[in-house]
């Protein structure tokens, strides 16, 4: 099997020559061996090979027997016979640095299922890095359900806390053993290899790199089907931009098998799908020739830093090894070209995908001309590009992607430039675009939600900042259509759908889905369910709640029970239900659904940290809008933790989440905490932030400062908020007017009702035709009238209008209560105790049971209640107020003056 063409006599002779050659000076050895072999090419090759093996890195014979025993290789394993989950461990299959794999059985209803069960090493349960890697491997396997990939079956944690997972146990031989034993003819070998291509293509489409493809990891089972194993060092492509995973990646860098490693892998450069393509090339070479693709005398990479980038053609290698003329001829031409295209040192010159490699093999078997050309070195020429539609397509999209990228930031552009022309990597770049778009979209959402929180509800969408080039990219049917592989097309289209969803382009989402859905009727349930989920979100945003309900149901039906049981998809659907409930005014239902969706996302193992945080962040927003402020803070904290853990805390999405948290703290009356949160956001670099988002934050900050008794700073920040918004959207824009309106209460909280009055006059009738805003204007009119002309009429006006607005849902109850409480404080400070007490009493009545918690408003309500009841100052409420607004705040100081006498 080492060299099929050698007979026993040649083997013996080769062993003798090899030993004698060891006495010859290394530099003369090649010539000496050639002379001794006297033209017997097969013998010569075998001696060369033995010498190379002698020089190669260490193997098991280089360790003493006692070392092996010490490593536990001969010891009985105490875990044999143990029960792990539903399985009983029967025998050890293999062992490695991180854990061991066992043959295990599960007995159910008289039926025995035999599996391969992987367990972390017993001595290492506290090794968090190992645990993380193990979890990643499991997570990768879960998403790779393919007929030619050993299936993930089950996973869990054993009674003593060791994580485990079970996968399909493949009963078969390794690929090379299989073909050698059966002397499989060439076309059948190629068929087997094409199954490997399918498996690798599938992994790549799921953004998983194998990184350790080799014959040992490829089995052929009893049915003659290929099964790809061992994603132990596999890598998720989208983790690339995620610094949190670097630790894992770095330690894994050296873990590949050098004989099958691509040059970029050996030199520690970035790996890509092309890295797996190289390994496929080595395997193909070995299938064709029975040996590995290196020139004589060197086993490059194996323990050395040598990198062989010039493999010889398989036909020549076989001829040198003394292969039959007929077999050599069969390789010459197409198969030489195909293998060498895989083995190109430069990743960009290899096949664009495993599917492309497979296609060329199919064409070869069908007698058609293959697409790869021996003159691949001139691949940059226009002629070559015309012939290679894949490269052209990818190149055009790449150029477009770059165009889009410049809109976001230089850094994004640099990242895009580093990307190769691979189609799967295009999907990756779309993901990045999406992330960038997500940031912008979320900024707009925050902006809107700021207004919703402060002014009840703003209904129009914000100004679109979608770059037109992006629309062109998505709209170019022809461009997308040139991707031959329908799975790839689907993946790209879904990525585009997602991109538009993140950009709030919901009509576009619907249009894309209308095109996509007929084409995916035969695709996996998961794909259909994803599409349906997008449709549900789009329908909700477009106000078609009935459509949304239908889409949610369709997504449910498309999922397998397993998919329904866990992972990101059911979490997303649950969030769609939350948004549907919110749109129907069922806030309690929205809160329950959003909480459940967030809980599911938190434990989902099939999503990136970014996606997890994104969904939980949506949950936080939902709770915020439903007034579940503590829950909102809690979820926002969770998001922050997830992102910080994954190293994505520095991005814009994280800033938006932080603002959600600050808003929730502010609304619940935790003013000091809210101020710290906003100042924390400001401390981070805000250069890439849009003016509207900055304006929204400044506006909130101004109001906080006013409530925290810093009137001068508050008025300055309010003016800044107005400038930022109005300079960017225009003086007459609704956004500008809204921003001005949002500063009215800031102005009078700051003790300057005349200033507030002037600003309100300035807004004038600009908002009159916007009903929700008109209600806010009317509210401010009365509040200001009371302050500027306090009399029974203006007082009754306020005491009637604010509670009524709260009852009608035109104004959040918290806002009405806070406005009256602040007025009570203002009049109390003016020495008008009767007005103050009437305002406070109405505030208390309006609040009812709804205002609870630890913030400023609940404690003020309690303090006022005690005063109205002529009770002593409740010290607990005072302490709470101190925590919320600080010990030196006038609200606290005024009551502390009364507290000692009351005690």
């Amino acid at each position, binding site marked *: 099997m080492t060299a099929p063409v050698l007979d026993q006599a040649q083997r013996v002779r080769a062993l003798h020559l090899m030993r004698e050659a060891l006495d010859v000076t290394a530099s003369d050895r090649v010539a000496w061996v050639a002379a001794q072999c006297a033209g017997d090419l097969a013998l010569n090759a075998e001696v060369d090979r033995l010498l190379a093996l002698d020089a190669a890195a260490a193997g098991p014979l280089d*360790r003493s027997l006692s070392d092996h*025993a010490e*490593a536990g290789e001969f010891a009985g394993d105490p875990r044999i016979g143990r029960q792990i989950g539903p399985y009983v461990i029967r025998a050890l299959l293999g*062992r490695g640095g991180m854990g061991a794999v066992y043959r295990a059985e599960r007995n159910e209803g008289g039926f025995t299922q035999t599996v391969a069960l992987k367990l972390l090493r017993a001595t290492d349960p506290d090794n968090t890095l190992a645990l993380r890697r193990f979890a990643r491997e499991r997570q990768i396997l879960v998403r790779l359900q393919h007929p030619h990939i050993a299936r993930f079956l089950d996973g869990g944690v054993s009674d003593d806390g060791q994580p485990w997972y079970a996968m399909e146990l493949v009963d078969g031989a390794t690929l090379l*053993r299989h073909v050698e034993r059966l002397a499989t003819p060439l076309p059948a070998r190629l068929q087997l290899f094409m199954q490997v291509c399918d498996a690798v293509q599938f992994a790549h489409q799921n953004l998983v790199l194998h990184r350790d493809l080799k014959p*040992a990891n490829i089995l052929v089972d009893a049915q003659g089907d290929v099964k790809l194993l061992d994603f*132990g060092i596999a890598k998720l492509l989208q983790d690339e931009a995620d610094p949190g995973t670097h630790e894992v990646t770095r330690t894994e860098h050296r873990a590949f098998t050098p004989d099958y490693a691509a040059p970029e892998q050996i030199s520690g450069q970035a790996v890509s799908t092309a890295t797996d393509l190289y390994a496929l090339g080595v395997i193909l070479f070995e299938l064709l020739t029975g040996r590995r693709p290196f020139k004589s005398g060197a086993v490059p990479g194996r323990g050395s830093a040598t990198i062989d980038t010039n493999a010889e053609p398989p036909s020549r290698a076989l001829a040198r090894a003394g292969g039959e003329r007929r077999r050599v001829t069969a390789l010459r031409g197409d198969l030489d070209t195909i293998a060498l295209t895989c083995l190109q040192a430069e990743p960009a010159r290899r096949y664009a995908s495993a599917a492309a490699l497979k296609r060329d093999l199919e064409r070869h078997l069908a007698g058609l001309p293959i697409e790869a050309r021996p003159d691949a070195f001139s691949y940059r020429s226009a002629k070559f590009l015309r012939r290679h539609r894949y490269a052209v397509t990818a190149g055009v999209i790449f150029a477009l992607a770059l165009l889009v990228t410049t809109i976001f930031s230089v850094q994004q552009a640099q990242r895009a430039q580093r990307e190769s022309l691979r189609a799967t990597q295009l999907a990756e770049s779309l993901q990045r675009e999406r992330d960038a778009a997500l940031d912008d979209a979320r900024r707009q959402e925050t902006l809107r939600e700021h207004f919703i929180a402060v002014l009840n509800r703003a209904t129009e969408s914000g100004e679109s900042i979608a770059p037109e080039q992006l629309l062109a990219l998505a709209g170019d049917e022809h461009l997308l259509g040139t991707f031959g592989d329908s799975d790839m097309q689907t993946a790209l289209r879904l990525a585009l759908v997602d991109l538009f969803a993140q950009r709030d382009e919901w009509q576009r989402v619907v249009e894309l889905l209308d095109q996509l859905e007929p084409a995916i009727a035969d695709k996996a349930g998961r794909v259909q369910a994803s599409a349906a989920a997008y449709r549900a979100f789009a329908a909700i945003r477009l106000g078609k709640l009935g459509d949304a309900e239908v889409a949610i149901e369709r997504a449910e039906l498309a999922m397998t029970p397993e998919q329904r049981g866990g992972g990101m998809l059911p979490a997303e659907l649950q969030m769609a239900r939350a948004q549907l409930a919110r749109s129907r005014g069922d806030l309690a239902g929205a809160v329950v659904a959003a909480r459940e969706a967030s809980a599911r996302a938190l434990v989902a193992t099939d999503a990136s940290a970014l996606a997890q945080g994104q969904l939980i962040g949506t949950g936080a927003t939902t709770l915020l809008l439903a007034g579940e402020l503590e829950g909102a803070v809690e979820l926002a904290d969770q998001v922050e933790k997830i992102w910080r853990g994954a190293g994505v805390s520095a991005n814009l999405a994280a800033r938006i989440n932080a603002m959600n948290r600050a808003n929730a703290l502010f609304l619940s009356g935790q003013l000091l905490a809210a101020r710290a949160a906003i100042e924390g956001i400001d401390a981070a670099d805000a250069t890439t932030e849009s003016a509207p988002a900055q304006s929204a934050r400044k506006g909130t900050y101004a109001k906080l400062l006013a409530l925290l008794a810093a009137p001068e700073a508050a008025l300055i920040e309010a003016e800044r908020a107005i400038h930022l918004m109005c300079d960017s959207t225009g003086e007459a824009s609704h956004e500008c007017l809204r921003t001005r309106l949002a500063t009215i209460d800031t102005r009078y909280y700051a003790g300057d009702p005349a200033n507030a009055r002037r600003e309100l006059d300035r807004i004038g009738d600009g908002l009159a035709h916007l009903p929700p805003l008109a209600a806010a204007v009317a509210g401010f009119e009365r509040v200001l009238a009371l302050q500027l002309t306090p009399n029974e009429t203006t007082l009754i006006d306020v005491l009637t209008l604010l509670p009524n607005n709260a009852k009608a849902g035109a104004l959040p109850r918290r806002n009405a209560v806070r406005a009256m409480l602040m007025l009570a404080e203002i009049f109390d400070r003016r020495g008008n105790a009767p007005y103050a007490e009437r305002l406070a009493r109405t505030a208390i009545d309006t609040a009812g049971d709804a205002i609870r918690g630890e913030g400023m408003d609940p404690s003020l309500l309690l303090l006022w209640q005690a005063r109205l009841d002529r009770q002593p100052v409740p010290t607990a409420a005072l302490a709470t107020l101190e925590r919320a607004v600080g010990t030196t705040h006038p609200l606290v100081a005024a009551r502390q003056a009364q507290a000692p006498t009351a005690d």
Partner: protein
Amino acid sequence: MTELADAAQLFERLYDELRRIAHRQLDAGGATLQTTGLVHEAYLKLAQSQVVDEQHLLNLASRAMRQVLVDTARARGRDKRGGGLQVVTLTEGAQALPEMSLDVLALEQSLQRLEQADPRLAQVVELHFFGGLSFPEMSRVMNVTERTLFRDWRAARALIHDDLSRFDGANA
């Protein structure tokens, strides 16, 4: 007599070596009484043999060692079907390269092939790897120069490592 004394000494050494390993493993908290079981099996097999001279004893001891390991591996359930064929290379940790761990049954197959091609090479592996003999000791036992033995070892090692990497632990 001296020959027998040498033989006893050598056996003692082998025995001690194995016991040392067993102790170390037990101290480390492992449950590896099997290693001492292995020594006793080796002893029994040796005792049953007619010990005539040093060369014979060492050959026997080494062979017994090899046999015990193979028997243990077989008994451990690495049956020809299923178990032995699931290939798993746990390559995550740099500290334990998969190529360094030993598949006793694959080694046995390779050794048998080697025995057919060149019995002396197989004997060198048996004595050096299984018996733990140094090259001077082997030279004395086999009456061949150290230099020759070292070259033999390198040739055998190259072939076996090649076989092992190709067997990939498969055991058909």
